[in-house]
């Protein structure tokens, strides 16, 4: 995604909208309203509730990503630095990583009740393992020569963490976040089907399956896509700022 130019993305978006408009005009069914109608509905609905639904969803995604990074990155760093710790943890990660945690949604909801917590925990559970594995592998890939020479400059454990392990794992953290955004947004839809009256997942389900208001449903889908895209761009911008060294220009 880093080498995809924003202008090209916008052009592709325009092309897709055009195609959609064409198909909708040919089909003429309520299930497929034309994008012009969806966009006007979107614009009309944002101040009348859709905006608040989107904010609720944004909060849940960002909170779960932030919690997952805060929990998984330090643990990944520790596992990557210590062969012994990793030997202990690796079999557990191996077993737990592939469990489809979405399927656990009813259990999480039963255990943690209504409110924000179960939704955030559900997304957190999935992101946690993705970030953990990527950060662990990046920390383990740091060359021993690098650690030795930085130690010889006087660095103890704290300075090694600050000057070597933290910056070395930053690209992995950002990659993990970017990979997780798609999953997180998809999960959001599932998580927001249960016990809430705010969130894009709820909004889409309500309009699509209860009210049969298809333009509004599509407006919700549009909002969810924009949410994902916005997060993508935000992570891209962060990566370009923080990891300039990764794309060295050949001399």
């Amino acid at each position, binding site marked *: 995604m880093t080498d995809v130019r924003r202008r090209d993305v916008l052009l592709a978006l325009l092309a897709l909208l055009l195609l959609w408009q064409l198909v909708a005009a040919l089909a003429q069914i309520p299930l497929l309203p034309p994008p012009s109608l969806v966009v006007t509905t979107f614009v009309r609905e944002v101040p009348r509730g859709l905006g608040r639904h989107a904010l609720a969803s944004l909060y849940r995604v960002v909170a779960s990503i932030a919690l997952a990074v805060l929990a998984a990155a330090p643990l990944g760093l520790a596992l990557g630095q210590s062969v012994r710790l990793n030997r202990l943890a690796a079999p557990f990660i191996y077993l737990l990583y592939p469990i489809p945690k979405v399927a656990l949604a009813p259990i999480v909801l039963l255990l943690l009740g209504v409110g924000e917590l179960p939704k955030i925990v559900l997304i957190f559970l999935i992101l946690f393992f993705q970030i953990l594995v990527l950060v662990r592998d990046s920390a383990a890939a740091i060359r021993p020569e*690098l650690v*030795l*020479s930085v130690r010889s*400059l006087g660095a*103890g454990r*704290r*300075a090694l963490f600050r*000057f070597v392990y933290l910056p070395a794992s930053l690209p992995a953290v950002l990659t993990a976040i970017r990979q997780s955004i798609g999953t997180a947004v998809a999960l959001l839809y599932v998580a927001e089907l249960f016990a809430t009256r705010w969130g894009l997942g709820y909004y889409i389900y309500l309009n699509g399956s209860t009210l049969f208001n298809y333009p509004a449903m599509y407006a919700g889908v549009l909002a969810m896509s924009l949410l994902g895209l916005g997060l993508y761009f935000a992570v891209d911008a962060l990566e370009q700022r923080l990891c300039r060294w990764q794309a*060295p220009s050949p001399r």
Partner: protein
Amino acid sequence: MLEACGLHFAYAGRPPLFVEFSWSVAAGETWAVLGPSGCGKSTLLMLAAGLLRPQQGDVRVAGATLHRPRPRTGLILQEYGLLPWATVRQNVALGLDIRRFYGPDGRHAPQDERLEDHAARVDYWLERLGIAPLADAYPAQLSGGERQRTAIARTLALNPDLLLMDEPFSSLDAPTREALQILTLTLCREQQLTVILVTHALEEAAFVGQRILLLGRPPHHVPCIIEAPHPHEAAYRHTPAYQALCAELRERLEAEECS
């Protein structure tokens, strides 16, 4: 400057590399440690740097027994010592940043460390190593020689009194290597550094070492030392004394006389 007394060292599950090994380096001397790969010469350097601990005996540097890396010992490795995500300037400043991070605590940084002149020291050493124009480049954008210049600048910026080098020039082409050898030795003499350079190349040992420690097949017991006082000038490579020294080193290595 450095005394190793009765060193005993073996990696876990391997035969010992050093048994009752004693060796001493006086302040201001320039040493080369020469031997084939696997002979334990890098291990000796790690012991001198305080990055490895002997199982018996001790290493004393500047009169104090080593328990951990010492702030005034500089170490330069063959490769991969630079932070790939930091520019040349940031890499050169790394040691000073670490000292600032801890403050002058006497353990990670000398107690008399002056934090305020760090930027000037970085500029000075960038200039001296000829890498000032590359200050904003990243290591991946540099040639091997430029990377080693960065590593040397980073180490000298810490005002070391003992400089340990492990094959610092081995991955460089011959002209770059010879130019950098002379520059490094000139700077070390200016700073009155004690130098220990580990190498597998006997030409390098012959050119750099005023005294040469020869390591043959381990375990090492009594150090085998060759005295070779000479000027550090390019012309020395063309003298009969240099040729004779190279021949002697080759002969001794082949005969494993020092094992």
